[in-house]
């Protein structure tokens, strides 16, 4: 082994503690005797169920929208491509609450599309649909980023061979390109799922907090913190466990299938997951 300076190890330990210690602190506050009751209360189960359902739907949306986007970014060249890439990745760095406000002025009652939809009798803001839209908005870049990288790594050589064997572009895409990047697609989808599950700011801003309709698990935790800290801690632990499982699965997929991407996205997702930003002012709670 190449010797590293001793101080690197010391600083690294501090860094690791910085992540682990808060989790440990939280676990020490779990009210174990009541844990079962706390996580199975009516509001908890409703929130967990809603979170899982909406996250699954938004992950599916991320795949449907993100795969073509990643293909366009990785396999073609057109004017404004760099701008498009920057815009698609914007939700990664945008404060979620800002995303929520942007969505509100798009799909809200007086929003860009909202007023048209209102005429058609469709109201999106403060509905479960709004939760899904908010989650998709913030989670989509994870899938696009992960998949675009994998597409570039795989290259076009297999696709060229498939074409010279007589395969039409759609056949090449479905039988060669997508199977080759499947590990990245799966791990990207898992990261999107994790991000959707942890979504708070955009959801609260755009969808509000109505039990069973828009109050997802992170919102439930934030509310319970005021009235029942034990329930908040118990539910937080549930979210941590789900996050650990998702990250573990995603890592397992990338390692087993030989995809080297995912590390940077994972750290980003964890940062986002832990960033429980404050609710915006004037929230309809």
């Amino acid at each position, binding site marked *: 082994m190449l010797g590293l300076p001793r101080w690197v190890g010391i600083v690294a330990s501090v860094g690791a503690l910085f992540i682990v210690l808060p989790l440990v602190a939280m676990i020490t506050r779990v009210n174990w005797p009541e844990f079962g009751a706390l996580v199975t209360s009516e509001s908890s189960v409703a929130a967990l169920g809603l979170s899982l359902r909406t996250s699954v739907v938004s992950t599916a949306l991320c795949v449907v929208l993100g795969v073509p986007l990643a293909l366009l970014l990785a396999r073609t060249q057109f004017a404004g491509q760099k701008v498009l890439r920057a815009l698609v990745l914007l939700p990664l760095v945008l404060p979620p609450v800002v995303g929520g406000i942007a969505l509100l002025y798009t799909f809200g009652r007086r929003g860009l599309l909202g007023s048209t939809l209102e005429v058609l009798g469709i109201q999106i803001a403060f509905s479960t649909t709004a939760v899904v839209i908010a989650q998709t908005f913030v989670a989509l870049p994870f899938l696009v980023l992960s998949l675009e990288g994998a597409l570039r790594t795989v290259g076009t*050589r*297999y696709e060229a061979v498939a074409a010279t064997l007589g395969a*039409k572009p759609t056949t*090449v895409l479905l039988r060669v390109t997508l199977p080759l990047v499947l590990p990245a697609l799966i791990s990207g989808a898992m990261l999107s799922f994790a991000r959707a599950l942890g979504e708070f700011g955009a959801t609260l801003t755009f969808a509000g907090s109505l039990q069973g309709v828009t109050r997802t698990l992170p919102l439930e935790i934030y509310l319970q913190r005021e009235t029942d800290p034990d329930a908040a801690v118990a539910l937080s632990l549930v979210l941590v466990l789900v996050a650990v499982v998702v990250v573990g699965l995603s890592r397992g997929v990338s390692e087993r299938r030989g995809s080297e991407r995912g590390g940077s996205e994972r750290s980003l997702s964890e940062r986002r997951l832990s960033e429980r930003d404050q609710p915006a002012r004037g929230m309809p709670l």
Partner: protein
Amino acid sequence: MTPHRAVTPDRAVTPDRAVTLDLAAAVTARNFSVELNVAAGETVAVLGPNGAGKSTLLNLVAGLLRPDTGHVQLAGRTLAGRTLADPAAHVWVPPHERGVSLLAQQPLLFPHLSVLDNVAFGPRSAGKSSRDARAIARIWLEEVDALELAERRPASLSGGQAQRIGVARALASDPQLLLLDEPFAALDVAVAPALRRMLRRVLESRTVVVVTHDVLDAFTLADRVVVMHDGAIVEQGPTREVLLHPRTRFTAELAALNLLMGTRVDGGMSMGGGTGFEGRVIAAAVAHSAAGAAFPIGAAAAMAVRPSAVSVSVAEHASAERASAEHASADPTSTEQASADRSAGLNVLRGIVHDLEPRGDVVRVRGVVGGSGVVSGLGALGGAEGAGQALAADVLPSVVVDLDLSPGAAVFFSFEPGAATMYPSA
């Protein structure tokens, strides 16, 4: 194999069709400008060093690259460029509609498919049912002696096995034209011969363009060779004619032959002054061009001689030093032997060592013979003009040490007339 043929009767009846590749294309950015024709059923080897434009040529035919100007036609159908019928329209046929299969240096088997499904990929893409496609795949796996690998994953194959499957996959798509890009370059030398034999068998009567930098591939597979250099064809013709009687420096390098140019004289070739023998070298074998062109005295001539047949000495009278390189039994110090060689007509050329390159158990001594630069370097002979010609000799390491050879050393290169072949250079 024959009983299985029934599944694809069309192939059994017409193993080859009247396909002709007609390419005349330029790619400005790559300084590429080539005109190439391939007859139906012909295997053409494209030879050249890295960067000569061989892969560009293949990509143009396969449809992976667009020519800036020119056209690509296959069996009378325009694949790229302008057609005679409608000169205004710019035709572009995408790769999957060309009927051109490409087998690259790496077999690039789809890692997520079994061997059988890899080979069935082409037929499947052509619209065959999964069952029929697999039946065809089995025929081709058997054709390349790899049927037992059908259920394996590509990752579990050896390089040679994978390349066999690559051949089967390329042929199973029933291409009108097969392109092979350095098919043996990534293979272990031990497995290449068997694969070469297999390819020669399955490529029989097919229309094939094989890109290679290995003359052995060309000798084994090709009816005709095309030599490329710097994006252009520098020489082409029947394989043996081109590779045994090179007329350009590039071809001679590929064929590992020394090429000397001069003018035909009675019984040999004159290289001009400064080379020794009044610039005259003698060749026992005179090959006339395949076209049967006249080769009179005074015609431009070329001479080919293998580096291993050339020996090096430091003094003209000791030219029998060659004996230590070729005939260990001979006494290298025997001046009598040297005189005997001279009287027998041993060619002795003055030269200067340019560089020394160890090549396994021999050292290749590259030098320049003839030319005014050489003469001034020797400081002895006058009246010589023109640039020198490159000449290489493969000698034993001990000879290099004994003669204290180093770049810049003045030496004599010698070879037997019987080792040289002379032929018209144009």
